[in-house]
């Protein structure tokens, strides 16, 4: 019995700092902010209780659903390129290769530059009037006319490229850290058996990386579905809403910037959209989590 009591103390004692901090500074503020979703509230004046009206409006809000579709394309594109690419890079740079520390540092560099600065640089590279990319492609006759990389047709591709560029370094490091837990002798014995690099990758690396990989992909999903800062500075969601993503839409409702006419925050509706967005992110992440757990059991 005494033993049992001690175990409880250990368990909850270890959990306590995390629990209290999360509850007080993480969860409570979310509820504080979310209560507005049942109100019509503009940041001043009366808060008018309107029940589920904000959600009825949300249901018919084409701009939001367009943002949802854009987000899925954006997050899907980003993950589909980033995860395999950074895993391959991590495996290559894990061991053996000469100069790998130098390359790791190079690949990591993009993640330390501030978003605002990067938007300026990407504009210099991608703008259609005198962008470096168009100059290069035109000079080498790879294209016949300037491509409008930030125009309605290509803007989504460009923001995905920006996202991938900013993410590869992070996921490479996470995978590298995960690779450290794979015992080196596994590879050595496989080599003695004459396994090729590709065989080693599928037979040892991927299965052994399982739990870490599951967390990394989960992280990638939530992060990409949530991301909006780099889009905000590069395209502001434009042109004509082509790169508007969910949280950017929420941000604009809560912190509108406009010139010439008064600025009105839509705190009530913004909170409702924010809540719906969080649910969407949560459901997709949860769905992945279940699926990956099932897959893990099969292994």
């Amino acid at each position, binding site marked *: 019995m005494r033993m049992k009591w001690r175990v409880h103390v250990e368990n909850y004692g270890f959990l306590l700092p995390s629990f209290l*901090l999360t509850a007080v500074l993480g969860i409570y503020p979310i509820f504080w902010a979310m209560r507005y979703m049942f109100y019509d509230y503009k940041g001043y004046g009366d808060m008018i209780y309107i029940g589920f009206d904000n959600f009825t409006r949300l249901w018919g809000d084409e701009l939001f659903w367009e943002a949802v579709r854009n987000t899925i394309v954006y997050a899907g594109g980003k993950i589909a390129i980033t995860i395999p690419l950074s895993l391959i890079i991590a495996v290559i740079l894990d061991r053996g290769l000469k100069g790998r520390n130098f390359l790791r540092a190079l690949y990591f560099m993009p993640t330390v530059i501030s978003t605002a600065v990067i938007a300026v640089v990407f504009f210099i590279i991608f703008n259609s009037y005198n962008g470096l990319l168009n100059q290069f492609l035109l000079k080498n006759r790879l294209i016949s006319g300037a491509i409008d990389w930030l125009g309605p047709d290509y803007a989504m591709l460009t923001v995905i490229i920006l996202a991938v560029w900013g993410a590869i370094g992070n996921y490479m490091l996470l995978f590298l850290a995960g690779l450290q837990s794979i015992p080196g002798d596994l590879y050595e014995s496989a080599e003695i058996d004459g396994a090729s690099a590709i065989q080693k990758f599928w037979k040892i690396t991927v299965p052994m990386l399982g739990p870490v990989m599951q967390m990394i992909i989960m992280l990638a999903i939530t992060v990409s579905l949530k991301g909006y800062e780099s889009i905000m500075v590069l395209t502001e969601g434009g042109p004509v809403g082509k790169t508007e993503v969910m949280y950017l839409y929420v941000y604009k409702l809560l912190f509108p910037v406009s010139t010439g006419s008064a600025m009105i925050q839509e705190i009530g509706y913004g909170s409702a959209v924010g809540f719906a967005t969080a649910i969407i992110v949560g459901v997709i992440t949860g769905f992945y989590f279940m699926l990956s757990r099932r897959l893990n059991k099969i292994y």
Partner: protein
Amino acid sequence: MNGMGKWVSRGILWLFLLIIALFTVFPVLMTILGSFKSNLELASGATIWPKEWHFSNYAEAWKQANFSTYTWNSLFVSVASTVGTLIVASMAGYVVDRRNFIGKRFFVVMQASTMFISIGAVVLRPQFELMVDIRLNQSLWGVVFILISAHATTFFILMGFFKAIPRDVDEAAMIDGCSFMGIYWRMILPLLKPGLGVTALFAFRNAWNEYILPLVFTMNTPKLQTLTVGLTNLRYGSGAAMQTHLMMAGACLSMLPILVVYFFANRSFMQVTAGSVKG
């Protein structure tokens, strides 16, 4: 495998690495080169090399963003919150992975749910009012606590790494008479080094780049401002256009501390067995 094939595959490998290097480094290079350009040249685009090297951008950015004082505040916030985040998240991650107890599922869902909300500025006000209650509203400790509280990502990443440490380690140590605390501290944490290294780097970078929290907490105490607050002010100067050139110089300077932390973190996932696999 014949020699020829090996050379071809080597060549493809290096070509791949080179292309990725070009892709990642070119914008970085443009940032560094851009930090030496004039504001007009930057806003006009079209050039790679500065027409004229404006070294004065750095001196100006250093002065205007108050680097010499603000750097220390930034370092304090980043180091304190990184250490705090690692301790809090690794303790929680350890029990959640190793033990079963009532409320475990609730705890994990609670952690996860904080990750789905994205806009920090929304929850700023209740957080600040809490800090006013405990009189930390004019202290950088308030910022540190809030940064530590956002440790869900670290928690989940570390969970992945805990799972990868075999449970035999715990059991063997238990038999040797180590306490739960002792196992965590002496056995598990050292094995967790790669995971701790990478999450420490991310936590440090997050804290280093955090803008709105230090802004609000130093509203009435400008001496405590952090570097990001100073850097953001660089964007606007005496005129209606952005001072992009100073912003770039400032950004290049403020990258350096993160790179230093990176080199330490990188050591935690350098293969100890490096060199044993020649190929």
